């Protein structure tokens, strides 16, 4: 296998490498520049060096990756079988939780009513709580419509966990968007009678039939 010739590490590159290696959290290029005392303008130089380092590590068992603008080292994914720790296996999310997570990620920001409109069922409060607790979903404010429903979005930890540089890397997001499947859930698009029980405080017009006299 031939690989690109790794560049000879210079001082800045070595310092960036060491900083990221030692850090307990992922760091942005600007944070690295600040830490290294490169000043406000140092971010760009750091970014260029990070790109070089990323290439250097490409063939190795350790990777330098960027998630939501923050960089960290992690093991190469193809070595998962060697490293997987049975004991620490993540608790599996329920089907409902994974669906809600996907809906939040692909549609963010979304309200609970919108999530329920897509899934056609009420979402147990616990389901969102699990995602909030996992640190993958956060409350992103309220939508300025009647009832001011809380809206949800994903977090940097979500990108970290699923190995996404940004939400643009969500699998198939471009196709889904092109097919109009990520359009805002429009009340008019959804006929009555699709039977999702209405959720508590938000009152979307398109969910319930029983209280929609026609």
């Amino acid at each position, binding site marked *: 296998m031939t690989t690109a010739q790794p560049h000879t590490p210079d001082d800045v590159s070595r310092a960036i490498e060491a*900083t990221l*290696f*030692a*850090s*307990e959290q992922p760091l942005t290029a600007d944070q690295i520049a600040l*830490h290294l005392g490169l000043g406000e303008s140092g971010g760009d130089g750091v970014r260029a060096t990070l790109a070089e380092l990323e290439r250097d590590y490409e063939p190795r068992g350790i*990777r330098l990756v960027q998630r939501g603008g923050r960089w960290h*080292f*992690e*093991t*190469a*994914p193809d070595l*998962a079988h060697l*490293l*997987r720790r049975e004991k*620490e*296996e*993540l*608790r*599996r*999310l*329920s*089907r*409902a*939780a*994974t*669906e809600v*997570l*996907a*809906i939040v*990620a*692909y549609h963010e920001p979304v309200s609970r009513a919108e999530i329920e409109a*897509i*899934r*056609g*069922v009420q979402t*147990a409060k*616990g*389901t969102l709580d*699990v995602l909030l607790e996992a640190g993958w979903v956060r409350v992103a404010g309220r939508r300025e419509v009647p009832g001011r429903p809380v809206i949800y979005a994903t977090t940097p930890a979500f990108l970290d*966990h*699923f*190995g*996404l540089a940004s939400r643009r890397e*969500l*699998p*198939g997001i471009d196709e*889904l968007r092109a*097919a109009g*499947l990520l359009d805002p859930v429009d009340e008019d*698009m*959804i*006929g*009555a*009678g*699709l*039977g*999702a*029980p209405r959720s508590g405080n938000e009152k979307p017009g398109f969910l319930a*039939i029983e209280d929609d006299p026609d």
Partner: protein
Amino acid sequence: MATLFDDEWEVEDRTGARDDKLYLEIEGWEGPLDLLLDLARRQKVDLRVISILQLVDAYLTYIEEAEALRLELAADYLVMAAWLAYLKSALLLPRDEAEDPSPEEMALRLQLRLQRLGAMREAAARLMARDRLGRDVFLRGAPEGLRIERKSSWRCEWLDLVRAYGDVRMRSEPVVHMVRERMVMTLDSAISRVSSMLGVAIDWMDLRDFLPPAHDGWADPRLRRSALASSFVAALELARTGRAEIVQEETFGPVRLRAPKP
């Protein structure tokens, strides 16, 4: 109800063959839309070109069978069945132009909803199958950690310094309290004035008429207020000891006094 952590969950499993009895367990679906999507998937055609009529038939058949088996069907499944039956008839019957939305549009919306849910379900599966941190890829086991030691550099202006000193000095000077002497009408003098005036009064008299006239050094409003307060207390005292009668006909109305009728 679905549990939050469901170990046997697998997305692909739902489309696999199941034994009929199991298949009829309505509990297995998260609501009618979920069931519809599953039925649609069984037709093994793209959701975009699926026949809604066929799908409606499949759903209605399913619900009928379930009822025949006396499974308890949740209301929302029946509501959906009713709505689908209505949709079916609307699609089959001659078209009523006035109808809005048209049955075709309703069918299209249903199809879109199924596509949306199908897309999210697939997206969830793809997301879960990614190389996940802590499962497939790992962070450094024992990072040294970055420590930032904050060192303060202090700032203080000359003006702050000298002002602070001035404040300290003023605060620590011995404080002398002086109460300014103020002219008042004492209660004793009010009692003697009111009782002597009552002695010569013929009828009810307004309390304010007992005050000294505004000249003679009694013009100061603060002194007049003191005189009014003292005279009022004097009136109460005289009434209490039976030396005056006191009356006020309405709230905030004039307080009037007279000598008690023997």
